């Protein structure tokens, strides 16, 4: 066991998968000699050569399209989108080509498209995106977003070995702020499985990514007020771990959905639908959501912190729920 950062865990996963399987290769902008805008791929091109760490032109549609073609040939491409915001530029290739290929003609597309998502770093409207809801209504795609170094490594390995297209969102706020223990031996974190980050009996805070820490801090604050919050880390956003969500709500009878993307049209809606349809009998209070304000992500720190979900907002909502 070694304690590594979230970003180092991602690098390790790439390194080990490339060493394990010669068919795994990387494509993206500035990922070669430079090692990527966030240095996630640092050292990989030296180790595996330029043929397996390909610096691409500024062409997201081409990066993903070429990955699809290479995957047809038996390769396992991992694409980096320099900032996940630019995934909007290849929305077509992902939702129309990659997502439907297996269904239409049985031709699987084992590609991973990864990149830094999320705010809290003063990135402004175009470097802070949380795009999961854009893709949630497209069958054929899988999506994950780790909150720990352990999951960052295990989910990325699982994504690379998966036979379907997987969108892997890494939260840039966590890159160097989060450190935890990662086994020395090979392991994966299976897609589609949530994790209970904190046991509780009074309400379930269902979240993922950087918001897991907001939820845990809120849970600590709530504990001091005698409220036991359970914190569920979804980890996989498609497919969603319905069982884990329903099980927790069946236990706590209260659900708070927390995500960093803006409220309206966010993944919280899907979770609310699942809970209100399948856990209706268990609910002692309304299903509530805490998310970012319905606006583009503002750039100035005072604006962004008012925009993002905060511990105090989560505490306040939780108390409304338990006092309901």
């Amino acid at each position, binding site marked *: 066991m070694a304690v590594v950062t979230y970003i180092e865990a991602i690098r390790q996963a790439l390194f080990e998968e490339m060493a394990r399987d010669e068919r795994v*290769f990387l494509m993206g902008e500035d990922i070669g000699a430079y090692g990527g805008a966030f240095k996630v791929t640092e050292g990989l091109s030296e180790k595996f050569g330029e043929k397996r760490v390909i610096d691409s032109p500024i062409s997201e549609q081409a990066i993903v399209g070429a990955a699809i073609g290479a995957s047809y040939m038996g390769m396992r491409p991992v694409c980096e989108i320099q900032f996940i915001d630019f995934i909007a530029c290849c929305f077509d290739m992902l939702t129309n080509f990659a997502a439907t290929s297996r269904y239409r*003609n049985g031709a699987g597309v084992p590609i991973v498209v990864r990149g830094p998502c999320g705010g809290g770093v003063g990135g402004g409207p175009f470097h802070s995106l949380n795009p999961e809801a854009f893709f949630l209504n497209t069958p054929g795609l899988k999506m994950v977003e780790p909150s720990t170094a352990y999951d960052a490594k295990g989910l990325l390995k699982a994504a690379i070995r998966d036979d379907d297209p997987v969108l892997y969102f890494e939260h840039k706020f966590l890159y160097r702020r989060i450190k935890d223990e990662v086994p020395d031996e090979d392991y994966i974190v299976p897609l589609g499985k949530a994790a209970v980050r904190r046991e509780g009996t009074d309400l379930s805070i269902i979240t993922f990514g950087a918001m897991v820490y907001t939820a845990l801090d809120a849970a600590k604050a709530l504990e001091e007020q005698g409220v036991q919050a359970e914190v569920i880390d979804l980890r996989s956003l498609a497919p969603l771990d319905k069982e884990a969500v329903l099980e927790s709500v069946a236990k706590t009878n209260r659900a708070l959905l927390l995500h960093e993307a803006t409220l309206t049209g966010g993944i919280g809606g899907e979770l609310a639908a699942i809970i209100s349809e399948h856990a209706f009998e268990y609910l002692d209070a309304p299903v509530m959501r805490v998310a970012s304000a319905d606006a583009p992500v503002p750039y100035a720190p005072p604006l962004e912190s008012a925009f993002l979900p905060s511990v105090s907002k989560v505490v306040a909502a939780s108390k409304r729920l338990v006092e309901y």
Partner: protein
Amino acid sequence: MYWFARLAREIEERLVILFRQSKVIGGLYRSLGQEGESVGTAYALEKSDAVLPLIRNMGALMTMGVRPREIFLQYMAKGESNSRGRDLNIHIVHMPAWTRDLSSPAGRDTDAPASRPALQVGRDTDAKEPVVVGPISMLGDSIPVAAGIAMGARMRGRTLVSMAWIGDGATSTGAFHEGLNFAAVQKAPLVVIAEDNKFAYSTPIARQMAITRIDERAAAYGIPHEMVDGNDMLAVYDVARRMVDRARAGEGASLIGVDTMRMEGHAQHDDARYVPKELVEQWEKKDPIARFTKVLVDRGAANVEQIAEIDRMARSYAAEEADAAERSPMPDPATITRGVYAGDDYARPTLEFVRSPFADAD
């Protein structure tokens, strides 16, 4: 080559009949007048190469040995079609066994012949199978994928050439630009066939681009490009051959602009009244099959009777294949959620290939 072009035309003639009987689901897009460039370009490939055709490249599919029945099955949305009735017309995909063989970098050459019963025209038992990736409707998206196929096969250690067709209109898409530029920088073994058939649906090429020679699209990518008379099958074959050879030799991507004409509307529903009559008349004189017939006869390669015989053969072959397809069942609604993701043991569909009766003569 003649066989493939004629076969393509006969298949489409047959499709028109089925369309009128409303046995074709959705639209029917013909390549009338463009069979020559489709066949001439694909003919320059090895049977083990990759093709990314468009709706108007029936000739390319025939040249690569796709069994005609596969086309009819698709157009009639049958359950035994390559897409199992899930996708349109020529949206078919085939990956040879080696792409799934991970035992060695390049994979063993065990392209098992497709598993369906042989038919009189003869199954293609020995030759290798091509990579076939039909388009998705989003125009231009095939180009980045074609580049990736070229790059990926090269990484697998195979000398495979990837050939993709694209319409004049589709060269205006961002995907075309990004894909071909990437292929050019990567020196990928890709040959793009840009078809100037004068219209994109109803839009004349002058509204699509401010250049008059479509091959100049490639000037932005620093790759070789040439214009060719698309209705002269031999000329098309010659230039395609050169571009394919240099791609196979590792000299990188190229683009061939073909000057041709879409002789009917965009699809059967389109009467194409926006097309000037003179233009059509002028191009009728240049029908690629008629011209190639003349060449064959002039060169004494075949006489008129022999050609008429080939035509009869193609027509009846197309008819048999259509009938066979018609008899096959529609897909089972119970399957609609199967095979969205891997691992639900939903069988991978097949694509059958056949051998041209003139395989040796060719």
